[in-house]
């Protein structure tokens, strides 16, 4: 039943998206309102199909229906309930179903929110674009990524293999893909409106500005997804790492970068109607990069601990990426003449100038990461040599970019529009600069050394001061309302990012790691701590045998363990002692074969602030979505329409 209904729902969703797109396209051409309404109704079938397919997949998993291929290959009666639910996205086919569900959800919200404006060709085109994306994903579900094939169970079948044990040992791993997908898929909506605006030629009406809240929503979830992934990595991997500049991590980061640049740059378009080409390019790049990211994760072209290569799907994603890129470049080139801004940037020392610099910095950041990630492929193709581009490259290259970003974060919020003077800047930046100095002095007093992290702390203090200054001014003027609204929420997001930056700099620069072999009862001193091996603890569970070493660190006992799963895989689980100032993580390197254990100890300062900063970013995003004022003031500026002439002042 699961297979039948699941297959049926996918077929319905696919056919509905094709029919609806065609109907809407014809309605656009002929202006037939009746046909358009029918098309919208059929589009709702896509939504229903996406929901039913996901429900059927989960139902098959929960009832352990092993006659369904996906459950046969990934499910197990031994898997605990939560992880069984998340098994839906533990393998390729299920993740495509999840993508379809989220896409259906966003489509439903678009159809609802814009139902009164469907007569507008721009909205119709946007829906057509969304349906086109749906068509691609449901076609994948019909063909190479079909979870619903029927399987005849072999006579000696006892139980399925269950998901990869690495995906079962932490609740964040269950949450990570849905959060990421809410982000990635969410960018489809503003992308659809961007393409619609280009196709209809109505690029000056603020359509991109209207969809800004959608972009913010998607961006917030993408940030949460990335932070969740980092947190999970840190908790389970065993070497204190949370970001490894791994190819899959890098390509998941690229849409975040272009999305962040877009969120900033669109403010310039809103205020002065400028940087339209930048905004359209950034937005469309964000969507294209999510497709590229999926390709790299699924194709196995780049070696990665995350990459689970599945033959046929990879090339299809690459093809889709190429198609999207071609369409976008073509559209922007075609409409180029309509995208010229009516205004100019008067001075580089202005908010417009800072945001333009911001765009450039983010673009460079994304370019460097992309280059480093694919460079081994380039070298292999052109020189037939094998090289590696790893952590040392990315750290050295992204560090200056990060510094420049912190500097811009400090200066941009205090820059006025159009033109600033040196005196104004000196006045406004005074106490943020003092905060930067204070941060550095504090770091030095706490024992921190090293030129690079010190500069990072100084710039972080500087940027933090600018953000706090903005919030202080706003709350002084409007009370608690000074915390919400785009600018103020944005400052809270900046504070979160600054915390993450400081934690990143500190934990990387002051990391201490070493390996020790200890006999029972033996102790060793490392990083001002006393570590003692107190013995082993063995726990025999139905799905795994857990061998834990009891390590006493200054009174606190940690239990790093090695898990031997019944299915034959062995995975280590580290244990961490964390505080606000520093984290100590201990991992058991191998199964102890005599009376001694080999452990790896990693000590890093300020790790907790990575997660606190991440949560603060999420909070700031929510605050940012609330309106600062309920009604627009009459003197608020609005987007200059294309071609407007500025009247000179008359008395």
């Amino acid at each position, binding site marked *: 039943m699961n297979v039948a209904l699941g297959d049926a729902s996918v077929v319905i969703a696919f056919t509905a998206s094709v029919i609806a797109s065609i109907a809407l396209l014809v309605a656009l051409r002929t202006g037939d309102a009746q046909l358009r309404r029918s098309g919208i109704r059929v589009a709702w079938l896509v939504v229903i199909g996406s929901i039913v397919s996901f429900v059927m997949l989960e139902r098959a998993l929960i009832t352990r229906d092993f006659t369904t291929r996906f459950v046969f290959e990934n499910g197990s009666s031994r898997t605990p309930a939560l992880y069984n639910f998340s098994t839906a996205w533990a393998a390729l086919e299920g993740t495509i179903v999840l993508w379809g569900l989220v896409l259906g959800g966003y489509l439903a919200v678009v159809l609802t929110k814009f139902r009164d404006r469907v007569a507008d060709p721009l909205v119709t085109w946007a829906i057509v674009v969304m349906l086109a994306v749906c068509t691609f994903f449901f076609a994948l579900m019909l063909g190479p990524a079909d979870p619903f094939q029927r399987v005849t169970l072999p006579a000696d079948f006892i139980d399925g293999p269950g998901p990869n044990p690495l995906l079962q040992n932490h609740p964040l791993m269950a949450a990570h893909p849905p959060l990421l997908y809410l982000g990635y898929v969410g960018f489809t909506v503003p992308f659809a409106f961007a393409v619609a605006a280009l196709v209809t030629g109505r690029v000056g009406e603020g359509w991109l500005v209207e969809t800004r809240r959608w972009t913010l929503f998607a961006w917030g979830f993408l940030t949460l997804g990335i932070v969740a992934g980092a947190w999970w990595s840190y908790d389970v991997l065993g070497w204190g790492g949370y970001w490894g500049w791994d190819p899959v991590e890098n390509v998941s980061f690229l849409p975040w970068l272009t999305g962040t640049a877009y969120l900033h740059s669109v403010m310039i378009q809103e205020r002065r109607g400028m940087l339209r080409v930048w905004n359209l390019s950034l937005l469309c790049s964000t969507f294209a990069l999510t497709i590229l990211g999926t*390709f*790299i994760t699924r*194709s*196995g*072209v780049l*070696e990665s601990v995350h990459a689970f*290569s599945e*033959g046929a799907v*990879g*090339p299809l994603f*690459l093809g889709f*990426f*190429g198609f999207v*890129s*071609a369409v976008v*470049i*073509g559209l*922007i*080139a075609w409409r*180029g*003449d309509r995208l*010229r801004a009516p205004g100019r940037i008067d001075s580089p020392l202005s908010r417009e100038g800072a945001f333009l610099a911001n765009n450039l910095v983010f673009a460079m950041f994304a370019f460097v990461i992309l280059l480093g990630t*694919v460079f081994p*492929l*380039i070298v*292999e*193709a052109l020189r037939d040599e*094998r090289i*590696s581009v790893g952590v040392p490259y990315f750290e050295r290259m992204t560090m200056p970019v990060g510094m420049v970003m912190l500097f811009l974060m400090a200066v941009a919020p205090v820059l006025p529009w159009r033109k600033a003077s040196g005196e104004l800047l000196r006045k406004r930046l005074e106490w943020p600069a003092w905060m930067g100095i204070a941060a550095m002095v504090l770091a030095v007093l706490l024992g921190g050394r090293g030129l690079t992290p010190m500069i990072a702390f100084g710039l972080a203090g500087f940027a933090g001061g600018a953000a706090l200054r903005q919030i202080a001014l706003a709350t002084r003027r409007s009370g608690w309302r000074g915390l919400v609204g785009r600018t103020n929420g944005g400052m809270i997001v900046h504070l979160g990012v600054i915390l993450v930056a400081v934690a990143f700099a500190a934990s990387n620069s002051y990391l201490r790691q070493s390996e020790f072999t200890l006999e029972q009862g033996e102790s060793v001193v490392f990083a001002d701590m006393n570590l003692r091996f107190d013995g082993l603890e063995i726990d025999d569970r139905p799905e795994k045998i857990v061998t834990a070493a009891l390590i006493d660190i200054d009174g606190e006992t940690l239990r790093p363990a090695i898990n031997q799963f019944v299915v034959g895989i062995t995975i280590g689980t580290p244990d961490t002692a964390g505080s606000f100032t520093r984290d100590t993580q201990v991992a058991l390197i191998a199964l102890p*074969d005599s009376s001694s254990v080999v452990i790896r100890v990693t000590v890093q300062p300020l790790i907790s602030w990575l997660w606190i900063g991440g949560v603060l970013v999420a909070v700031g995003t929510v605050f940012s979505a609330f309106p600062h004022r309920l009604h627009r003031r009459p003197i608020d500026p609005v987007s200059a329409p294309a071609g407007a002439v500025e009247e000179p002042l008359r008395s």
Partner: protein
Amino acid sequence: MRRPALVVAGVLALAIAGFVLLLATSETGRSSSVNFEIVGKVAPPLSGETLAGEQFDLFEERGNWVVINFFASWCVGCRVEHPELVTFADRHEDDNVKLVAVMFGDTEERAIEFFAELGGEWPALVEDTGSIHIDYGVTGVPETLLVAPSGRVIRKWVGSSGVTADELDAAIETASGGDGD
């Protein structure tokens, strides 16, 4: 302003097309860990106590052909190739072609069981083999090397199903210029 926009668009389109082409033509799922650096170089030192309790030293085998086989008991390919190695060892029991095995990532007990189960009496080094793995650039099992009488490594086989006795013999034939032996 039309011309520069078209030029930029054209350049971008070409760059992305090139990028897509690069990704489309790159091999997927290949393991970049396998290397053939050792081929052509003089075989690094290889010595130690064998399972049988004797001493083995590669340097003393100069003048003989030596086949070095890296194995582990958990490795499926090693199990598949082991009978072939038994055949090969039998063929060359009394001539100047020698076979030696080096364990990789396993325990002595399991190695003893492995040989007891599948046969074979050639020297097998099981202790302190870490530096041998590094010197020989071994990254997985099974890996098999052919060392010429001169002491130079002339051939390396990697592959999930290991080597066959015929492959080894053919390689020795070719390398000795078809003179046999």
